[in-house]
Structures are given as structure tokens and as C-alpha cells.
């Protein structure tokens, strides 16, 4: 899983996608979120998910702020993520700014599963064409 400019919607002005489909950065976020959930971290903040994506892709750099938070905002508006601000007291105890914590919703998990199915179908279609 690598992240290049073509995966960033902001750099792909000509790209128009069907409603309900996911672009790669959104898939990365949902996959990373679910992976964190499986490891016992049901919610995540922006920087944590950026780190998770970076580690998973073995990328040199973290996802840029604009790309990351725009995608998080889009996913939340689509119902694939839910978010809430953490308790101010907890942040105060740890002497840091409050975190906005996101969770992958059931809809988000379903959308990701659907995108995987579509991707597999497309891959098998390509293989069939190449073999023909």
C-alpha cells in the first residue's frame, strides 16, 4: 500500500467518482482505523492514523495535513466515520491539546469491504483481458 500523488483527490481534478465509492486515501484511513481497532484501539486521532498509514505503507513521510483532514471530514460526512472530542479533563491531565477521536462505523467497514470486492473484480477482469 503506497501513497502517491495520484491517490490524493486534491491532485486529481479530473477524477469524478461514483457516489459510495472510496478513493485510496479513504481506503487507507478505514483500513488503518480497523487495524487499530483489532489491536485494541477502537478510536484514533488524526496524527495516529497518519502514523499508522505511514508505517503500513513504509512511506518516508506522513500524509499531509490538508489531505488527511479533508479525507477525514469527507468520510465523517459520508457516515463512514464518527468522531467526538475527548474529555477536556483527560487532555488537561496529560498537559496536551484535546484530541478529536474518530471511529470507523459499520457503514464505513461495509464500504471498505465493498471497495475491496470491486477492486478484486477489476483485478480479475484485467487478468482475464491480459490472458485473452
Amino acid at each position, binding site marked *: 500500500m503506497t501513497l502517491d500523488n495520484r491517490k*490524493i*483527490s*486534491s*491532485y486529481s481534478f479530473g477524477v469524478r467518482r461514483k457516489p459510495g465509492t472510496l478513493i485510496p486515501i479513504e481506503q487507507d484511513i478505514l483500513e488503518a482505523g480497523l487495524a487499530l481497532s483489532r489491536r485494541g484501539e477502537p478510536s484514533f*486521532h*488524526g*496524527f*495516529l492514523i*497518519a*502514523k499508522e498509514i505511514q508505517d503500513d505503507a513504509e512511506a518516508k*513521510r*506522513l*500524509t*499531509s*495535513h*490538508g*489531505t*488527511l*483532514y*479533508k479525507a477525514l*471530514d469527507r468520510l465523517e460526512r459520508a457516515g463512514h466515520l464518527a468522531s467526538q*472530542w475527548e474529555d477536556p479533563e483527560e487532555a488537561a491531565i496529560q498537559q*496536551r*491539546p*484535546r*484530541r*478529536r477521536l474518530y471511529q470507523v462505523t459499520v457503514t464505513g467497514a461495509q464500504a471498505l469491504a465493498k471497495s475491496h470486492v470491486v477492486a478484486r473484480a477489476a483485478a480479475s477482469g484485467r487478468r482475464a483481458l491480459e490472458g485473452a
Partner: protein
Amino acid sequence: MNDLLTSLAAGVARNWVAVYTLGLPPSVRDARRAELQSDLWEQRHEIRSGTSNSLAKGVLARVLGGVPADILWAIDVRHDQGGTAMRAFDGYEKTDKVVIFGITVTAALLASTTIGATALVSLLVAAVAAVGLAGLMRLVFPPTTGGRAMDSSATSSRGRRLLTTFVISIAVIMGIGAYLFSLEHWGGLAILLNIVGTVALLVALGSLSLFVVDLIRGERPTRS
């Protein structure tokens, strides 16, 4: 020194988010700023962050790489709020918009070329500078109802012209001075002077455009 670089990089990130969230609904604006503040804190305190120097570079790279997405996001939010991307210019006449956009983009392109940036970076700088300068113009020279600032009174018109002339004079002097000093290989200071000169030149060109618009309007026969 390295801590200073990190603080500067974080400052750039905070200032940038403050700029592109200007004019957004308070809840959206405050949420994005707080989220970015949290992200910066987390990155700074991340155990595996390496040296402060690399941290500063990392923060700057994340800011610069996300500029297009930030701008598009802000436009989307404004659009969703019932406005349009061009709402900030609704009070201007069509010719004003063309003049402001044209001059700021050209000026930004020229300025970024003097810094020695690549073509892509120049375009990014141009776009950001155009949006930023147009917003600045809106704050400094708010258009009156109907876009007829010249009609309000002869006194305010005269004051505006004087102010514009003053800004042009100071900005041009600063810009040229900064450019001349930068030729002497003053290291970091030369870069700073270049940036100051660039900003001054942008302001000068923007002010000049409004000044010219005022002059043109002042000659219209329909003016009272």
C-alpha cells in the same frame, strides 16, 4: 536552534490554518484549528520523531503538501454553507476581480521565480498568494454597497488615494531594497529580506491595481 526551527515550522502550520479557515463558520473553523493544534503537538512529542531538524522539515512538508487540499476543503465548506467560492468578491465589480486576480497571480509568479522555486511550487505559491492577497484587499479596502466606493465622498476618495500611494511607495522601496540587499549573499538574512521584499511588492502591486481602478471610476460621467 533546532527547537527554534521546529517552533517556526509549527508556527507556519498554525498561521496557515488560521488563514484558510478565515471566514468559515466558527464551529468548523475552531474545530479544524484545534485538530491541527493537536496534530502538531502529537507529532512534536512522538517518540520516534528523530531530530528536531527532521521534525521541522516533516511538519513543513505536511503543511505544504496539503495546501491544495486545504484550499479546496475551505471552498467546499463555504459552498456547503450556502455561499460560493467567489462570495468574497461579490462586492467587487467584474473589472476589479479581473484586475485583482490578474495582477496578484502575475506578481506571485514573478516573486516565486525570484526565490528560485520550481514551476509547480511557483504555481502553488501563485495560487495561495492570489487568494491571500485578494482576501487582504477585501479587509483593507472593503467594497461599499453597489461597489461604488468613489461615490461616498470626495474626502474618503482622496484619503484612499493617498493611503494607496503611500503603501505603494513604501512597498516598492522595501521590495527593491530587499532585492538589492539579497544580492550580497547575506545568507539567512537575504532569504528573509527576499520574503519581505516579495510581500511588499505583492502589496504594492495589489494597491496599484485598486488605485488604477479608482482613477478609472473617477473619470466616469455617471459619477455624482
